[in-house]
């Protein structure tokens, strides 16, 4: 866990990276939504032989919408953490100036700063640790929930692939759509894995 002794500026850069990853997942969820709509039309045209595929496409569309919603929440939480981390950056900057003042000061000035920093350190540290801990727990929980959801999406995509085999003359087209689903969901899973690596503040 990074505290004020590490460079909190890198925490801000990390939040930017997390946010970019979240944006890319949202974009892919949107893509799945569109793909699912097309798949629903395709299944309708294929008729009786693609009934199962149609049902799965509907499920995939609902999945895409749920995913979009969860990622938006995750993004809001990440933005919320910008305030906490900005406070850390300010604290670190303040510490830095005070440390310089302590080195320069003699006599009463030195005593004043020493006393001030003693009081400040314990308090600020405990509060920061608490805030960052809470933030980390919340982010981990959200990412775990999302990973579960995406696992479901991946099962749906695999089932769609199996259903595609029964699509008669539309089989090739349905197969193409279902591997597109599979690939996009695979990309999302990789993004989430990198998110859980980055989330620890």
């Amino acid at each position, binding site marked *: 866990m990074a505290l004020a002794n590490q460079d909190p500026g890198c925490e801000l850069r990390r939040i930017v990276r997390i946010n970019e990853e979240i944006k890319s997942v949202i974009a892919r969820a949107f893509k799945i939504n569109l793909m699912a709509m097309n798949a629903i039309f395709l299944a309708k045209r294929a008729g009786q032989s693609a009934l199962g595929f149609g049902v799965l496409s509907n499920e995939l569309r609902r999945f895409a919408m749920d995913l979009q919603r969860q990622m938006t929440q995750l993004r809001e939480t990440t933005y919320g953490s910008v305030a906490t981390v900005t406070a850390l950056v300010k604290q670190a900057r*303040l510490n830095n*100036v*005070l440390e*310089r*003042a302590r*080195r*320069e*000061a*003699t*006599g*009463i*000035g*030195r005593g*004043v*700063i020493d006393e*001030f920093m003693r009081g*400040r350190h314990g308090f600020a540290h405990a509060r920061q640790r608490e805030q960052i801990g809470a933030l980390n727990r919340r982010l981990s929980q959200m990412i775990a929930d999302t990973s579960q959801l995406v696992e479901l999406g991946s099962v749906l995509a695999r089932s769609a692939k199996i259903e595609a085999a029964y699509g008669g003359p539309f089989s090739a087209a349905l197969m193409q759509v279902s591997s597109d689903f599979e690939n996009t969901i695979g990309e999302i899973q990789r993004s989430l894995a990198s998110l859980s690596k980055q989330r620890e503040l």
Partner: protein
Amino acid sequence: MKTARVIYEEGGHRWLALVRDPNRPEYLIDTNEYLVSVGDDAILLDPGGNEIFPAVFSALSTEFDPRKIDKLFASHQDPDIISSLSLWLEFNPQIKCHISWLWASFVPHFGGNQDTFVPIPDGGADIFVGGQRLQAIPAHYLHSSGNFHLYDSKAKILFSGDVGAALLPPGEDSLFVEDFDRHIRHAETFHRRWMGSERAKRDWCDRVSQLDIEMLCPQHGAIYRGAHVRRFIDWFAQLEIGIVRR
């Protein structure tokens, strides 16, 4: 660290100039800070920027307990004047900052809250330090549009913010102006470019001409004293200002 120099002392009434930090990096403009104290009560004038806080704080505390400072005076809103506000507030959250009403909602971006600022109306105001009356004298548009100087009628000192400022080369940075003609060359470009209003300049010259001033203390450069004060005002009165050289 900077040096704390006593420039006036009479009874418990004292003016301290915090000047000339040999370790100041080139890229920061040199500034003078002043502490006016009467007994245990004190006001810090143009406390300076964030970056030089250590130098100011250390120099000041060689002569005065920094925890007792509960008043700041900011001639205007510039970063070299008041960006250290949040640091001073760390030591005394009750500190009051006297500044033109014009800037009272801008400077909180440097720190402080609704209780921190005492807005000075355009006409000026009195600020009392240990019972001694100090007067905020209007100096608007010189250079800032909401700008005050601080006059101490007992010590006969006018703190003049950026007016009188000079950018002194190394080796010519004595605390007091010695050779006026030589000194004023380092002030000329600064005043021509920074001071924007001819009319405000004339008003200011008229206003301060009526004050009894023994020392004119700018925020940059050297202090004018005795006859140099009058010479400076006359020089400024005839200087053409508000000019960008191309």
